[in-house]
């Protein structure tokens, strides 16, 4: 059974609801274009169509994703503008290749989704640690370690909430689990942990991955608030790592700079 199956998935139906709203809104905007601005808009839309079309085909940034939505309206309106000219019969057209499937999280939102998933993974991992503590699998657990686990878990939950709020406000499904390329391996490692040092080393690695992921995210996100969210979470993950190093008995600040070699990239997300 998946470790995530215990947790609610409140965003499970969010995509369909929001898609319907978006569709209604886009339809309403298209109607407004026809009714109020259609005639003078045609010339400008003809000029804009090529640029917007390029944006729609390249959803590499968050801004381009939203331009893409606007572009879809504009392209629809532009097609209507060409109503004065006879459209070519469908049968005579060269068969078009099917459009690529749309990504659930385009542009910046993919990295935001990776971050939400990574935080969910951390929460689930610490939940599992607490379960192991409760069953005695780890032996005697010092009070400071138990406090660390509970506090770090709460902070990761807060981080997940911040990222999920960003997804929700962008009209995207929130993530209540951890669809990442590393999840299965990480949970297997945790399942094999039999002692407090084992668990601390596992958690240290996960915190380091998170810190490096956010360090890298500051370079591959384009939205200012998303960048700042990463910038204000990353130091907290490094603080967790410092305390874990201390607990393990390693020097607590081993590196002069936070690297990015173990950072998760946007393609770590196991969601199309």
């Amino acid at each position: 059974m998946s470790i995530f199956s215990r947790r609610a998935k409140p965003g499970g139906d969010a995509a369909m609801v929001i898609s319907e709203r978006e569709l209604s809104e886009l339809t309403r905007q298209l109607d407004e274009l026809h009714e109020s601005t259609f005639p003078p808009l045609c010339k400008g839309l003809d000029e804009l169509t090529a640029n917007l079309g390029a944006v729609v085909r390249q959803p590499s940034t968050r801004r381009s994703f939203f331009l893409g939505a606007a572009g879809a309206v504009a392209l629809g309106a532009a097609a209507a503008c060409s109503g004065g000219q006879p459209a070519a019969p469908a049968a005579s057209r060269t068969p078009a290749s099917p459009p690529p499937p749309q990504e659930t999280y385009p542009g910046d939102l993919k990295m935001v989704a990776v971050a939400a998933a990574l935080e969910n993974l951390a929460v689930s991992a610490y939940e599992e640690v607490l379960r192991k503590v409760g069953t005695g699998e780890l032996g005697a657990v010092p009070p400071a370690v138990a406090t660390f686990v509970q506090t770090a878990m709460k902070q990761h939950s807060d981080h997940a909430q911040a990222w999920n709020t960003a997804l929700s406000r962008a009209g995207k499904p929130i993530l209540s689990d951890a669809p990442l390329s590393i999840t299965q391996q990480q949970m297997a490692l945790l399942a094999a942990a039999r002692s407090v040092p084992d668990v601390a080393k596992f958690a240290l690695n996960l915190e380091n991955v998170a810190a490096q992921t956010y360090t890298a995210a500051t370079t591959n996100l384009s939205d200012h608030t998303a960048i700042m969210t990463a910038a204000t979470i990353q130091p907290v993950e490094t603080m967790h790592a410092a305390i874990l190093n201390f607990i393990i008995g390693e020097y607590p600040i081993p590196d002069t700079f936070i690297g990015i070699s173990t950072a998760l990239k946007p393609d770590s997300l196991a969601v199309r």
Partner: protein
Amino acid sequence: MHSKNRFRQFSAHGPAAAATGAAQGAPRDDVAALQTAASLENLAVQTYQMALTLPFIGGPQAKPEVKMFAERTMMQHSEHAAAFNAAVQRLGGKPQTAPDPKYAEMVRQALPAIKTPDDAVGLAITLEDVAAQTYAKDVGLVSTAELRQLFASVAGVESMHKAILLTVQALLKANQPQLIARPPQIAELPSSAGSVGFPDAFCPTAMAAPVEEGAVK
């Protein structure tokens, strides 16, 4: 417009939004931000240097773990200063070799009152905190991905310094200096030692030094 409204909603939300504001720095701010960062690092190096002359930090009364921490942290701050100044020079600016004026004055006033390890740790926490908050905020102000990574990379390390110092401070205040050890006797650590090092879920930025504070005049 619908799409712009949604973008605005996303941009206006988040724990950092209120603290950072929406404006992004112009490229000319990059040099000033880097020089201010170098000035904070220079001050940190000077302060740890002075602390290491104290008998309970770098002298015969010092715990080996404390002395090692002060020495390695000083070295890391020196490397941070070098990195910030190298970036300044790549942008055609003058490297900053002086300490941050505001916090240099604070340190100058604080030094005569440092009589115990706890006093020294408290001063170091302030400097590490200001540096971490400044760099976290600067991530959102500088104009290139390379500089964002540099500031984020160093902010994380200053936060680690702060986390350990907060833990050490708590152990000193609890009159348990013997627990400042490597490896620690984790079974003996008070429960609070597991959380006192990371008091906030998000790094605050309210104490961030203004971009121009340590710029070369």
